[in-house]
Structure formats: C-alpha cells, structure tokens
C-alpha cells in the first residue's frame, strides 16, 4: 500500500512530462509537415493557375515593394558607419589590409541575411500570420474547407511564397548595396581599387562559404515565412499555456533563426 501511494505522484509527473513531450513533438511534426506541404505546393505548377497566380502576385508585390527602398537605404547607412568604424580601428592597429575582409564577412555574410529575415518577419509575415489567425478564429478557414477549397493552397501558400520572395530579394539587394557602399567608403569614387576588391571578395566567398551563405539565407526566409503561418493554423489548439499563440510562434521562430545562424557559424568557422 505504501508503495502504491508513493508511485502515484511519480506516475502523475511522468505522465505530465510525457504529454508535454508528445505535444512538443506533435507541434514540430506539424510544422515540418506544413513546410513540406508548402514546398511541394510551391513547386507544383498547378499552384500557379491564372486565378491563384493573381492572388500570389498581389501578395508578392505588397510584401516586397513597400519595404525595399527603406531597407536598402538602412543597409547602406549601416554599411557606411560600420565600414568607417572597422577601417579606423584597423588603421590604428596597423591591420588595414584585413579591414575590408572583415567588413565583407561581418556585413554581407552575417548581418544582412539575418536583418533581412527579421525585417521581412516584422513587416510582412507576422502581420500575415495575424491575419490568418483572425481568419482561423472567425471560422473562415473552416468555411473554406467545407466549400472544398483547401486554405493551405489558397491562403497560406501565397503568403509563404511572398515572404520568401521578399526575404531573398531584400537580402540580395542589400548585399549588393552593402558591397558597393563598402567599396565606395574605402576607395572613394574611383575604379582603381576594383581589381583588388574583386580579388578580396573572391577570397572571402570560397565555395563552402558561398554554399553556406545561400543555404542560410534560404532557411532564414523559409523560417520567417512559414512559422507565423504554422502557429496561426495550429496555434489555437493548445490553450493551457499562459502566453498567446502568436507569442509562442514568435519565440519558436527566433529559436529557429538562432539555430540556423549557429549552424552557419559552425559551418563557416570550424
């Protein structure tokens, strides 16, 4: 009898932990599933029929065009400031030959993809996720399902594709702008340093670094586009936790971004 009474709290605690783990696993599995589904849909031509193409085009345009100019200007400004700081510091230590390499590595390889992804998340995909949450809460998505329209294809896919497109465009444009602005900040308006700069750029972008850079940018964009949608679609189910579903989605998104960044750093520097 004594044994029975002592095992009972243990049993309860174990079963609670098991449930939490199961819940956690289920949530990540749903996320992976949704990601795979979205990827398959994004790669299948049937998603780009004229009707859905127009919806997708509108999402693409409204999530990219308004933020493109502002983000590019911001990047140019940050590049000028950082380049000046790094150059001045390197000069004072007599290591100016490494300064440009440091600028390219820090800005183009590390800062810009992360900043672009966060910018897209804050300006496009989190509002999109909120919109989807509202649709889910109002039962609009269930209504669609009843009418035979799959909401993942009609509502989620355009938003994810638009977010990814926006992230990639922003990262590419601001990388190009940062490379140009860093050159101008160091050499001024002259073409005489171009050959050396290109050579330096080539030294930084070795095949492995380039591959990691591309993969990292793609994964960042995928994470910030997919995770707010996933938490909007599936977030309403678990209501035992105090924080709201959106907040949990955000935390999960940042955790994934951090993971990708750490993995890329490990790949680049080990």
């Amino acid at each position, binding site marked *: 009898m004594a044994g029975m009474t002592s095992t009972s709290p243990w049993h309860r605690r174990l079963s609670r932990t098991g449930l939490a783990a199961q819940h956690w696993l289920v949530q990540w599995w749903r996320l992976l599933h949704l990601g795979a589904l979205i990827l398959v849909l994004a790669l299948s031509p049937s998603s780009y029929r004229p009707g859905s193409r127009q919806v997708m085009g509108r999402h*693409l345009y409204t999530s990219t065009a308004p933020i493109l100019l502002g983000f590019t200007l911001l990047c140019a400004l940050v590049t000028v400031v950082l380049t000046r700081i790094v150059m001045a510091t390197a000069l004072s230590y007599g*290591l100016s030959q490494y300064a440009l390499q440091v600028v390219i590595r820090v800005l183009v390889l590390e800062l810009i993809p992360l900043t672009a992804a966060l910018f897209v998340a804050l300006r496009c995909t989190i509002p999109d996720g909120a919109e989807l949450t509202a649709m889910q809460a*109002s039962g*609009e998505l269930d209504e669609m399902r009843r009418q035979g329209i799959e909401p993942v294809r009609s509502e989620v896919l355009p938003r994810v594709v638009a977010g990814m497109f926006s992230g*990639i*465009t922003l990262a590419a444009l601001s*990388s190009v702008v940062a490379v140009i602005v860093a050159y101008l900040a160091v050499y001024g308006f002259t073409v005489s340093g171009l050959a050396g700069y290109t050579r330096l750029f*080539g030294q930084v972008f070795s095949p492995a670094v380039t591959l990691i850079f591309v993969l990292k940018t793609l994964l960042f964009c995928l994470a910030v586009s997919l995770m707010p949608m996933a938490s909007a679609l599936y977030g309403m189910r678990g209501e035992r936790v105090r924080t709201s579903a959106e907040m949990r989605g955000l935390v999960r998104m940042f955790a994934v971004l951090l993971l990708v960044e750490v993995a890329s750093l490990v790949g680049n520097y080990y």
Partner: protein
Amino acid sequence: MPMRPPLDSPPPLPPVAHLALKVRLMLLFMLLLVCGSALYVLYARGAFEATQRLVLVADDSEGVVVGMDMTFAGFPIGRVRRIELAEDGKARILVDVAARDARWLRTSSVFTLVKGIVGGTNIRAYSGLLNDPPLPDGAVRTVLQGDASAEIPKVVAAAKDLIENLNSLTGSSGAVSASLDNLQALTGRLNGPGGALGVLLGGEQQAQKVSAVLQRTDSLLMRLDAIAAKTDAQVFGDQGMLPETRATVVQLNAMLGEARASLKKVDAILVDAQAVSANAREATTDLAALRGDVEASLRKVEGLVSEINRKWPFARDAELKLP
C-alpha cells in the same frame, strides 16, 4: 453545429494598378540580382580567366590556405587551388596563375613561402632575369621557405652574444675603457707645453728641436731675401748687366751694317772680278789685299759676337747668320 458567420474577416488587399507588370518586373529584378551576384562571385573566384598550373613543393605547407594569393612585386598573379601531400611526404601546393600574368614567371623564377609574425603566410615569386624563357604550364618548383617566427630564437641568441661582447668591451677592464683612458692622457698632453707637436713627436725636447729648426729656417729665408734683392740690382739696376747688354746690341747692329757694306763691296768687286776674269792674273795682288781686308772685317765680327756671348748669358740663339 451551427454555422458561425465570419466575425471579423480581414480587409481585402487594396487593388494594385498594373499588378501583373509590376510583379513581372520584380521577379525579373530579383533574378537579375541573384544571377548577377552569382556571376560576380564566379568572376571574383577567377572562374572566367584562363590559367596555367604551377606546382610548388614545400617541406611544410602550414599557413597556406586554398584561395590565397601568390604575389609578384606585390601584385596578386595567382591563387592556391589545392594543397596535397605527395608520396615523398612533401606538400604540393597547386597554384593557378592567370594566363595574362604568367609572362612574369620565367624558368629562372624563385618562389618563396614566408610566414609573418603577424598576419598570414605569403607566397611570393621573384623573376630576376625577365629575358629567360617563360615558365611552362604545369612546372614543378621547390619553394624557398622563410619563417619569421622560427628566426626569432636565432635572432635572440645572436643579440645576446652581441650584448655580452658589448659588456666585456665596455667593462672597467675592457678595451673601450683602456682606449678612453689613453685618450684622456692624450688630451692632457695636448693641453700641456709642446701641445700637438709634443704629442706627434713623442716628447718635449723633440718639439723644441723642431721649433729651433723653424727659427733657423726663418733667418735663412731672410738672408735669401737680401741676396735676391742684390741680384736684382746687379742684373736690372742702372749699372746692371741688362742695360750694358742693350748698348752692346746697338753697337753690334752698327758693326753688322758695316760688315754688310763691306760685303756689298766684295760683291761688286766679285762682279768686277768676273768681268775681268780674262785678266785675272793681273788683279791677283789687288784681290789678295782685299781678301785680307775682308778677313780682318770678319774677324772683328767674330770677336764682337764672342764678346756678346760672353756678356749676355741670356742669348738664346748664339748663331749669327751672315747674308
């Protein structure tokens, strides 16, 4: 389950004018950006330039990384493509040299692998003779290695030796100290009687002798001066040799005129003699007398000339030319 009406459906997206065109432009823009970036990376990696292969063999490839530059006169002309370990345990550094820069590499070129104390390793090429034949593709060269950090212990040991030598030199019993003492004694003697002369000649007595010699030389010079003045008066004075000589020359001129007149007479007489050659025998007595006259005249001239020669030692040309 009752149908739930949409509570707060999100507001529809605002319509965008020329949506299809704008979307197409944006897609095109992104494609251009991505493709341009990819092409630039490939170009910067040297994917589009013709290269030739150069293999550098080194004992130790530490610090050499794939992608680093090989420089010639500070300009990057090649990149390390691969580093591999050969069968003989040596490192083979495979360098791609841009074809347009390969002309700087000659068969006599030297390659060095230098490790700095701060900063990376450098591979440098040196071509002393640019007239040599160009380096062929796939050439294998041994790289000369210089390691700045490996040199540090040697440099430190050498510096230590040097400092020890310096210490022994500058110590209280060292050579430098003895030299300085000697120098001090020397300067003391320089300041003393005799001064520099005493230092040079080795003693005060010698210095005094030298000064006595100098004094005697001085008096001798004064006497020489007086002699020179006398000589001047004798030679160039009123009763000197030169005016007398001048008078003698005037006399000589007059005598020469006389001699010339006599000789003219002789000439005329000779003409006469020729004219009367038929009666030569008759004129023989007259001719003998005349001949004695001429001979006496000539003897006078000869005497005069010898007198001039005696009196005028400065005559350059003692020979007298008779007409």
